[in-house]
């Protein structure tokens, strides 16, 4: 019988700790597959964040470096400068990247640091129990926004892909989602391109991936996928914001 699906060698056999229905797992799988397909596992060095994906260092089948909250792009910079031929990526949540680590991501992009960032936007702080993130939608409830996010009080949600696409050093910027199979395929394509941009030495690449947090959104996994589609995509439009011509 023909095998149609198997475990990617880009991931270890360690079982994920993610909540049922959480799309962090899908995004891990995509990144693992891409690293394997590009044949770069042997020279990949990943940087894990602080957030629900803090244990990413146990899941990717390559050298991994755990970073302080928000500092992954700086750690990745140090690694890439020492090993310019390696393939360096950061995997970061929205609290990690868009709040405490905004300076680090902006400046890594600004320097055109030849790294790839996988930015998981689930519009909430997952790991610490559902507090408001910079990406929490207007009206969305969070444990620190019990009446729903109010623009007057907390500002509008930060659009990271749009913001980074204004920076010249950011050569590849795309926003994707993983709420259905068609979009998962598009997400994989974008992530692959982002790594190719690094491999060709173009500069910084980031893929913002809209992701669910059923646990802290207080929804079932399927309700969460629907909520993402109906609420997040209108505010965070999918699509490519920047691509160097060579990889188009």
């Amino acid at each position, binding site marked *: 019988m023909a095998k149609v699906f198997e475990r990617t060698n880009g991931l270890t056999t360690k079982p994920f700790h993610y909540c049922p229905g959480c799309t962090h797992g899908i995004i891990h799988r995509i990144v693992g597959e891409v690293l394997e397909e590009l044949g770069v*596992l042997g*020279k*990949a*060095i990943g940087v894990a964040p602080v957030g629900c994906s*803090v244990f990413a*260092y146990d899941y990717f089948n390559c050298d991994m470096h*755990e970073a302080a909250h928000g500092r992954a792009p700086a750690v990745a910079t140090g690694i*890439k400068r020492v*090993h310019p031929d390696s393939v360096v990526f950061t995997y970061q949540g929205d609290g990690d990247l868009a709040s405490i680590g905004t300076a680090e991501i902006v*400046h890594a992009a600004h320097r055109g640091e030849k790294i790839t960032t996988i930015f998981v936007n689930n519009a909430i702080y997952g790991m610490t129990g559902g507090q408001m993130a910079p990406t929490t939608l207007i009206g969305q409830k969070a444990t620190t926004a019990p009446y729903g996010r109010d623009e007057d009080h907390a500002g509008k949600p930060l659009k990271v892909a749009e913001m980074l696409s204004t920076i010249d050093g950011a050569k590849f910027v795309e926003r994707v989602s993983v709420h259905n199979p068609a979009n998962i395929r598009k997400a994989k394509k974008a992530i692959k391109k982002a790594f190719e941009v690094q491999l060709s030495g173009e500069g910084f690449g980031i893929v913002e991936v809209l992701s669910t947090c059923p646990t802290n959104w207080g929804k079932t996994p399927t309700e969460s996928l629907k909520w993402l589609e109906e609420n997040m995509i209108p505010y965070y439009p999918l699509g490519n914001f920047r691509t160097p011509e060579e990889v188009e």
Partner: protein
Amino acid sequence: MGKILMKGNEAIGAAAIKAGCKYFFGYPITPQNELPEYMSRELPKVDGVFLQAESEVAAINMVYGAAGSGARVMTSSSSPGIALKQEGISYIAGAELPCVIVNIVRGGPGLGGIQPAQSDYYQATRGGGNGDYRHVVYAPSTLQETVDLVMEAFDVADQYRIPVMVIGDGMIGQMMEPVEFKEPKQRDIKPKDWATDGTKGERDPNIINSLFIDPQELEDHVFKLEKKHEIIKQNETRYEAYNVEDADVVAVAYGTTSRVVKNAIAKCEEEGIKVGLIRPITLWPFPDEAFEKISDKTKGILTVEMSTGQMIDDVKIAINGRVPVHFHGRTGGMVPNPNDIVEEIKKIAGGENNG
């Protein structure tokens, strides 16, 4: 190679490069700017990398990444900048990575001033970062000693997989003295087979990490670090001491302050007062053993610092109540005056200041 006249900050850079440091990440702050400037000029010539980070927070995390990937790496800053680096230093210590951090101390708290001070003693020896960690702290008092210790710092960092801090005050950074670059002693440095430099498909993945969610695992890790700290205490504690055994008064001072204190001691000796000196060269580990030689008959210890009194806590712990401990300090960028120190010593020797 003979002696060459160099400015402190540049001599530190030269020593680092001689020790094989290839990577420098920093952010400008007075009074240490000549050091990153020197590195930006010289590192490209040896195929190294200088990168000016967007902040001290980023700089130390770049150091964290580079150290984890197996490089010899250094950063430097001055007091408020080191405060920002404490987060990263805690992670580097937790993940057991080697690196060298230079702090050319200026007055504080807050933005403070830009003149020499020693008011970061607590920050350096107690750790401004979180958790049970220690790192080696060297406090040189001459430029020759500074270059010797900077060169050795890289080896010590590698041997024990620990961050090493070299503390100089603004005076060390700014003054000029002749220096000679000598090979440090040979040490047992193991290959960095733990580094994240890519598996090349030839080994299992390496993980650099300071997270231990299981409390038992974290306790084991912290006790393992503590064991290493004990070995460092035994092997790497350094100090200069003289005339301690039969002194009327023992002065304790480090760095630039110790030079002023030596002048004061010479003046006292001319007047027939016997003054001993203990000059810690490592602030951590603190040279407790030097204090064992102080006789119970000594009238008192005088600790002199460019702070309101921080090292004095370690002096009191070391002498454990056997001899009274007095303090003379200037701070805010003021340097102690030898005549004032002579006055203090005379008071103690005359029994005026006891109890």
